[in-house]
């Protein structure tokens, strides 16, 4: 159980490619932190630097207050679960889990106790005598977790542990990891490219892109107040809608103008913009699909769209719309309140009107891609 602190950590490969830029982060004891981002964003490299599998080019890494830059992985007291499980194919499940304990020269009785205990928690007791190749993907995953569990390590690292599983198993294992975390009560660092995993598992999420940290925050924070276009687009599914619009500074406050439709901002937003001294300018307006209000008839402040595709998801519809200047918009519409006529009218080519309440609008500067209000 330990805190982890990264200060100005950099990874530069021999060929002068910088994979991670000035990474600064403090992870508290017993915190569950998720690194998330598209492939090649440096999240795995950072994790591997913490594990000691990659050299740290610059900066310092502290575990429990001790600088561990030059320590070998075995001396860092960490446990790690790999994406492809990395089970030793020539050993039984029991020996796989016991491997690290044997290296520590722990008495066999104690090893037995720990291994069987871990196996019980993970529900793999009956497979202890098998070799890894005789196991299914989910079972292998459990063994890999078991191998990390018995160590009682200070920090628990997981590198995309669920990405080799099918969708159903992934959901199940995700829940189990949450349970496991409660049982182990240790520091977790978890790497994934899947924003759903990040949102459901993490106490805090670190969103990365091209070796830079884009935003750090709780799931709620990064969802509600994304600091830039990338975070706004990355977190949330389906993706946030982006529309070209203009911000106009009027007497009564700021107004967003989309193709002549003017939508006012609320007081809070006005205050921030005012304080930052922002005038009238072009913006990119971001609105999440679930925050879009659908009007079946034209009204004040309604934007006219055409329906392209109507996807039936069961409890809700995903409507793919085009605005009049051809911005693509996705709208999530619960089916429960719809009348039969309304449902039938939602077909290709028909018109539909949408509008956005002030508090769900995210404003981004097209040049810097930064949020005008948050961050």
């Amino acid at each position, binding site marked *: 159980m330990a805190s982890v602190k990264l200060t100005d950590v950099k990874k530069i490969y*021999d060929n002068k490619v910088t994979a991670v830029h000035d990474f600064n982060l403090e992870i508290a004891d017993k915190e569950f932190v998720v690194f998330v981002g598209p492939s090649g964003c440096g999240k795995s490299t950072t994790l591997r630097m913490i*594990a*000691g*599998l990659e050299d740290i080019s610059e900066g310092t890494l502290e575990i429990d207050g001790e600088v561990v830059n030059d320590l*070998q*992985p*075995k001396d860092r007291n*960490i*446990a*790690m679960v*790999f*994406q*492809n499980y*990395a*089970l*030793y*194919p*020539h050993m039984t499940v029991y020996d796989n889990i016991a*491997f*690290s304990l044997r*290296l*520590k020269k722990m008495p066999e009785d104690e090893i037995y106790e720990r291994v069987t205990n871990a196996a019980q928690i993970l529900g793999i007791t009956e497979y202890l005598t098998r070799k890894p190749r005789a196991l299914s993907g989910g079972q292998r995953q459990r063994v890999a977790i078991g*191998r990390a569990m018995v*160590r009682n390590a200070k920090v628990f*690292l997981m590198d995309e542990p669920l990405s080799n599983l099918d969708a159903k198993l992934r959901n199940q294992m995700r829940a189990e990891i949450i349970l496991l975390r409660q049982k182990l009560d240790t520091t977790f660092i978890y790497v994934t490219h899947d924003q759903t995993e990040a949102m459901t598992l993490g106490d805090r999420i670190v969103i990365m892109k091209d070796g830079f940290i884009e935003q750090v925050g709780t799931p709620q924070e990064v969802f509600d107040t994304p600091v830039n276009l990338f975070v706004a687009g990355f977190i949330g599914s389906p993706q946030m809608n982006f529309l070209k619009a203009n911000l106009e500074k009027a007497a009564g406050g700021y107004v967003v103008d989309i193709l002549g439709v003017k939508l006012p901002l609320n007081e809070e937003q006005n205050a921030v913009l005012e304080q930052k001294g922002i005038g009238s300018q072009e913006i990119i307006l971001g609105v999440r699909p679930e925050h879009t209000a659908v009007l079946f008839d034209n009204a004040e402040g309604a934007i006219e769209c055409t329906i392209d595709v109507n996807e039936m998801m069961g409890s809700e519809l995903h409507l793919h719309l085009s605005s009049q200047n051809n911005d693509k918009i996705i709208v999530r519409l619960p089916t429960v309140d719809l009348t039969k006529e309304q449902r039938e009218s939602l077909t290709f080519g028909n018109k539909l009107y949408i509008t956005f309440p002030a508090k769900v609008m995210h404003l981004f500067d097209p040049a810097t891609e930064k949020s005008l209000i948050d961050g």
Partner: protein
Amino acid sequence: MSESSMKRHMGLRASRTLGNTLIYILLITISAIWLIPFFCIVLQSFRVESTWQVGYVMPKVWGLDNYRKLFSSDFTRWYTNTFIISVFTALFQTVIVLCMSYTLSRFRFKMRKPLMRFMLILGFFPGMLTMIILYRVLKDLGLTQANAVPGLILVYIASSGMGYYVSKGFFDTIPKSLDEAARVDGATRFQVLKKIILPLSKPIVIYTVLTAFMGPWGDYVFARYISFGASAGMNVAVGLYNWLTPDQINNNYTMFCAGGVLVAIPVTLLFLFLQKYYVEGVTGGAVKG
């Protein structure tokens, strides 16, 4: 099925049968061509009437005379020499090759690429060139001619590190994450090799031992150079070669055949049992380049 499609179907089948028949004929011919010389060697090793060319294959008088004569000649000495050389070479060469290939497959150090390029370029020189000086140095050390056996072992194993390609290709196929998992689990690099990689490398270890054993078993050039005319230091290849020189062939031809049979038997048996690993090594090595 309509009549025309039936006809077409039959035609297809007929042409396939014809094709397969042709292939069988081809394979039988190939097998014959490949095996006949070896049959001839075996047959002639039992031929008692011993002039070198008789213009027929089947011996008129069968007997073990040639083998009997072999055992009273220097052949036993050559055979022992070869066996000793091969065993030691197989042992040391395997260790060296595995050290080299494992390192180049698993470690990323600054000199790795330059080292590999350097060894590639080194391989462009004909190895025979170094023999001129090696012979003289070994001679100064007293390791040539009658004492050629230790000298030859030294020559064979010394540069074996350069033949790392095939086994490196094999190591490259073992996922790196196994090493990493073991290191996180608390293993030193040495323990990773001992406890994780070596147990998984049985095929390549056997392949390396097999090829290292077979190399000196049939080597002619180095053995001839280092033994330099001294019968006591020769291996089977050099010794038997001398039996086929124009002045000896008339007396020793059938003995050469008998010797050849005795030389081929152990290697062939070894090969039969370990064929699987050899095939794995050859195909794996080729794919990896």
